[in-house]
């Protein structure tokens, strides 16, 4: 039978199954292939906090959503066009998110009485007509995989594990992608396990052939390469990008990189990634706890390293006392907080933007730090370099906020040339003449004199220090001077950071103001409302303390400010209290990023629901 190929602009697929079904792997393989074929991509892994929740249960469903396109995209897509459901629970959990008429590929072998019961289905949805609104493709994935792997010397259990590659093969066929990129990956991954390698390759090929030969698929789709700016690209997750950014900052500054860290979801990958780069002299100290993570980094900063500590919300709380020490001793330090749903253990694998006020005010005493936030997975690279640059240049702790969505999500990073990145020019103090530990330059930055330097022996500490001289001082007036100096130094960072850019009219009815990971959904929402004839401007903050110096003026140029955030209104609070300007809040607290449509609806609602035509 002749099968037609239909060109489409953009597709969202979601792979869903048990946490043990390998859905994250399947999804990321599809992502790599789409990326290498030149599509723009956005991904959203979504998995339970339990490593292996009971098989077949609703709680154990793990999903990976991928948006790939021939145009410029900023999100993992609102609703999938295709769902691959490995079992009834995966179908149940994900069905509500699908587009009308979406395609659902199901593993019928998993729809047995036990799994249906686990998923709380009274009747089999494949038979009771409840899926009639969807284009359901039933495939005996388990059985077909077993048949394909006959003759391979592996246990039934191991063969069963290959069914995700059979499903991936079908998807590759359906979206006109070659299988060889995944083949190559398998070859390097299972170099030492020839049977496993052979089985997975065979399952993949069999899935692909199945699409080709069976009658159930009539159409294939093709998504052409996106028109991205010329250059070399690689696909990065936010955590990976942050690690690369820190190493880049180490290369730029010529300082050794030291990471003190304690494993915590969703930040652990930064520790894992950096631990690979011993050839860059990177020291990763896996500490006994969060406090030791930051304290060891402070010790390293004292000796002249580029010092980093990585964590998530609960860990940030534990680090706060030590962060105050870094403020007091004016040592350069980057704290990267990959935010997750809180408070307490909260939703460890889900995203939220609720640590902004903790970053801003979470320390005892007057203890200002610089706060930055990355806007997309690839931007984690740039903001890590930027956080290091500011920390080192101003001898100040910097908190870099990302979140679970950015950390696990991925997108193409256009690899910049080394020369295109900002210089990080560091000079340690070595002259003895006129040296005092708290002597300040024009930006109020004190000198960095590291142990090992003869003649500059000095003592730092958490007790208040005498301005300029640095000995312990309990003098009333001095304390006030030092507090103001520390605050002013942070404010001086404004000189180093760019003005806030507005996308759209520079003044008018509505400005949508965003920070962090809401960038993508808002950008797409703005594009959509413009296509519908509405008018709104968009400004995105990557610098949250200090704010860009033109922010106040910009806010004054718009009648209404809409502020979408994944919290109850933390930036809204800062904007109101800093600029006495009211804002309209849009808040979501579901552990999930905004959908484009949610922001789009709100913008239209704020604009009065009419485009003025």
């Amino acid at each position: 039978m002749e099968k037609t190929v239909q060109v489409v602009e953009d597709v969202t697929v979601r792979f869903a199954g048990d946490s043990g079904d390998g859905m994250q792997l399947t999804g990321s393989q599809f992502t790599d292939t789409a990326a290498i074929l030149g599509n723009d991509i956005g991904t959203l892994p979504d998995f339970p906090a339990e490593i292996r929740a009971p098989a077949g249960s609703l709680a154990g469903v793990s999903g990976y959503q991928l948006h790939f396109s021939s145009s410029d995209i900023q999100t993992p897509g609102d609703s999938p066009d295709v769902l691959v459901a490995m079992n009834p629970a995966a179908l149940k959990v994900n069905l509500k998110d699908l587009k009308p008429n979406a395609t659902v590929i199901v593993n019928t072998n998993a729809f047995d009485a036990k799994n249906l019961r686990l998923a709380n289905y009274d009747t089999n949805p494949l038979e009771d007509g409840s899926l009639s609104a969807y284009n359901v493709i039933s495939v005996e994935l388990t059985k077909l995989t077993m048949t394909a792997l006959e003759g391979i010397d592996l246990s039934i259990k191991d063969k069963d594990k290959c069914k995700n590659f059979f499903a991936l093969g079908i998807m590759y066929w359906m979206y006109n992608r070659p299988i060889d990129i995944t083949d190559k990956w398998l070859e390097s991954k299972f170099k030492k396990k020839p049977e496993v390698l052979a089985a997975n390759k065979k399952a993949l090929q069999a899935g692909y052939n199945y699409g080709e030969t069976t009658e159930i698929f009539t159409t294939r789709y093709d998504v052409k390469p996106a028109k991205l700016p010329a250059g070399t690209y690689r696909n990065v997750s936010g955590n990976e990008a942050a690690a690369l950014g820190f190493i880049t900052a180490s290369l730029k500054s010529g300082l050794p990189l030291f990471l003190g860290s304690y494993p915590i979801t969703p930040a652990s990958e930064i520790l894992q990634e950096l631990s690979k780069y011993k050839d860059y002299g990177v020291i990763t100290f896996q500490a006994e706890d969060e406090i030791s993570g930051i304290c060891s980094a402070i010790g390293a900063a004292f000796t002249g390293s580029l010092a980093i500590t990585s964590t998530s919300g609960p860990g940030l709380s534990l680090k706060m006392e030590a962060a105050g020490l870094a403020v007091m001793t004016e040592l350069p330090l980057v704290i990267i907080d990959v935010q997750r749903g809180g408070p307490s253990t909260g939703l460890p694998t889900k995203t939220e933007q609720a640590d902004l006020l903790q970053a801003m005010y979470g320390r005892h005493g007057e203890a200002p730090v610089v706060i930055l936030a990355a806007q997309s997975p690839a931007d984690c690279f740039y903001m890590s370099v930027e956080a290091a640059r500011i920390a080192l240049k101003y001898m100040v702790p910097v908190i870099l906020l990302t979140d679970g969505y950015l950390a696990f999500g991925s997108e193409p990073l256009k690899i910049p040339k080394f020369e295109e990145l900002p210089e990080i020019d560091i000079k340690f103090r070595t002259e003895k003449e006129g040296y005092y530990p708290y002597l300040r330059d024009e930006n109020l930055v004190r000198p960095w004199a590291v142990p090992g330097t003869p003649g500059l022996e000095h003592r730092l500490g958490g007790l208040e220090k005498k301005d300029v001289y640095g000995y312990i001082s309990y003098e009333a007036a001095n304390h006030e001077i030092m507090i103001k100096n520390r605050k002013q130094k942070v404010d001086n960072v404004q000189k180093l950071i760019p003005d806030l850019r507005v996308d759209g009219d520079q003044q008018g009815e509505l400005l949508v103001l965003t920070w962090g990971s809401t960038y993508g959904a808002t950008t797409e929402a703005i594009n959509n409302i413009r296509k519908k004839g509405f008018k709104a401007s968009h400004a995105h903050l990557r610098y949250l303390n200090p704010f860009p110096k033109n922010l106040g003026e910009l806010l004054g140029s718009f009648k209404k400010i809409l502020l979408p955030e994944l919290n109850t209104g933390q930036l809204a609070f800062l904007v109101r209290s800093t600029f006495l300007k009211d804002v309209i809040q849009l808040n979501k607290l579901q552990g999930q990023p905004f959908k484009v449509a949610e922001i789009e609806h709100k913008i239209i609602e704020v604009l009065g629901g009419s485009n003025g035509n």
Partner: protein
Amino acid sequence: METNINVGEPEKKLTAKDFASDVDVKWCPGCGDYSILAQVQRTSPDFGEKIENIVWVSGIGCSSRFPYYMNTYGFHTIHGRAAAIATGVKLANPKLQVWVATGDGDMLSIGGNHFIHACRKNVNLKVLMFNNRIYGLTKGQYSPTSEKGKVTKSSPYGTVDWPFNAIKLATSSGATFVARSLDRDTKHLQEMITRASKHKGLAFIEIYQNCPIFNDGAFSSLTEKETKSDNVILLEHGKPLVFGANKDKGIKLDGFNPVIIDLNDGVHSINDCFVHDEFDENPTRVFLLARFTDLPGFPAPIGVFRQYHKTTYDDDYAKQIETVKAQKGIGTYEKLMLSNNMWEVK
């Protein structure tokens, strides 16, 4: 023989004065910390390090003011965190000789976790723990080394806690040099400090220190002339355990239990006494000796309980980096950004 000694040649012979900062020392009059400071300054020229390569790190408490009084690099940090910060200093620059000044509350209570992990990793740090069995800086609450039943400001009816035995804790956590000394025994203290300075690995010295303000006389039976010889036993490598004014008492082993013997009773002789071996890797000996302070009537051992060689965390880390660099070559930006999921857009 494995050498486990740091080597370093100072340019000119320094003196105690070179190590004293110009800051007024502000401990209470009569505080045992003065003596510890003096012995450290006196022995510092023998550490074999240049002044600028020595770093003193401390936490919070009376003892933790120590770095301010040393004319070296110093870091007075936050409560309990000295070992964690010192680990960062040492790991980031292994050329530095890193010392930690801490107290029983700072190191064994709020900083307990950092302490045991620094011992476990055998980070090349020298830890002087001033044990006065009380919280001094916060004005007299009981500490994790206070004797059970002790009446303090926060235990008006006496504590119901059992105390820590710091020697046992350090040993079981993995410290490779474990010693005890007394603030008042200046010669002995100097010897212990000097030996710690030469040890490669985590060196821990518990220093019994008198706090005349909140716990006066806690160790007087160990330091006063009249009682000292009956209450202190000096650990010396290869020597039998004898004590008493006339060296007439000894310690022998009955199975795993120590018993005090009278060397003049005509039954026992010095040959019955337990002989100290500080290089014995087996920690059993340390636990046996460390128990003396938990047993009524037994003398408190001072000296080196154990010293042995194990590779250090900072050394092993540096070696791993060198090995990987040799295998992969020095990292560059171009190599960093290389990945097997790269593509070109023309």
